[in-house]
């Protein structure tokens, strides 16, 4: 039972550090998660400035919150066996 608890907590730590590190090194975007970014270009003939789309995953605050939530849920789940054993007694 202790091993199960340890695995869940290590998994929670892994999820949390991965999410935070990914978010931070991907630019620490404080907006919503994006699956593409744009860069501006100008059409030489018409002078119209337009966006060129580049597919790229940019984790945002929702990604960070979801990662923290999942990590918290895993830690909480690690206490369940303890509650069950107490309930049985």
């Amino acid at each position, binding site marked *: 039972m202790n091993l199960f608890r340890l695995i869940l907590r290590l998994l929670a730590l892994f999820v949390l550090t991965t999410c935070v590190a990914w978010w931070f090194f991907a630019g620490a975007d*404080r*907006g*919503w*998660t*994006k*699956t*593409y*970014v*744009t860069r501006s270009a100008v*059409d*030489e*003939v*018409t*002078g*119209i*400035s*337009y*966006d060129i789309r580049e597919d790229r995953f*940019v984790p*945002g*605050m929702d990604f960070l919150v979801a990662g923290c939530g999942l990590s918290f849920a895993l830690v909480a789940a690690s206490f369940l066996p303890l509650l069950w054993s107490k309930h049985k007694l």
Partner: protein
Amino acid sequence: MKITRLLLASTLLATAVQAEELSFDFKDPKGVNHIVFTMDAPLESISGTANGITGTISADPNEPEEIEGKIVVDAKSLSVPNPVMQEHMLGADWLDTAKHPEITFEITEVLNPKKQGNEGTADIKGTFTLKGVAKEITVPAKVTYLPGRLADRTNGQMQGDLLVVRTNFQLNRGDFGIKAGEALDKVSDTINVSLAIAGAAPKK
């Protein structure tokens, strides 16, 4: 006498040619034509684009008040960078693109046209249709006529003229039945729209 008649006829012919109405096609294989829309939201402004633009505008470069035509936007080409937002935006609660696949603007009248060289400004009145709701709106537009520049855009493959239209205006989503009075804490009612499109009139 014959010479005078000939001169008069050639002058009239030249005037007729100059006053020729051109039809500009706004389908753009280069993907430059686009619309940018922004809305205020709590975490960050929602900014998206649309590039599925088609339509034609008939215009006589010498008579800017004579512009007429219709611009059509494929509603499914509206795009925001967040995939969840994208799904919601195109879904039944918001734009309902399955039932209303087109956003259109049909010009009905040109007000206050001002022309300076090949550039002009005007307030363009027309019928804007979004999510099946049609409303009369007036938008300020800047129009630039680029005679003979189509060749530059097509690497000499086509000869003709270009017409560039730029406009910025605001809409209220509630006016078009898009969650009227709802979710105002999540997305503002006001939508800022910026449009820059170029149409081509190939020489026949």
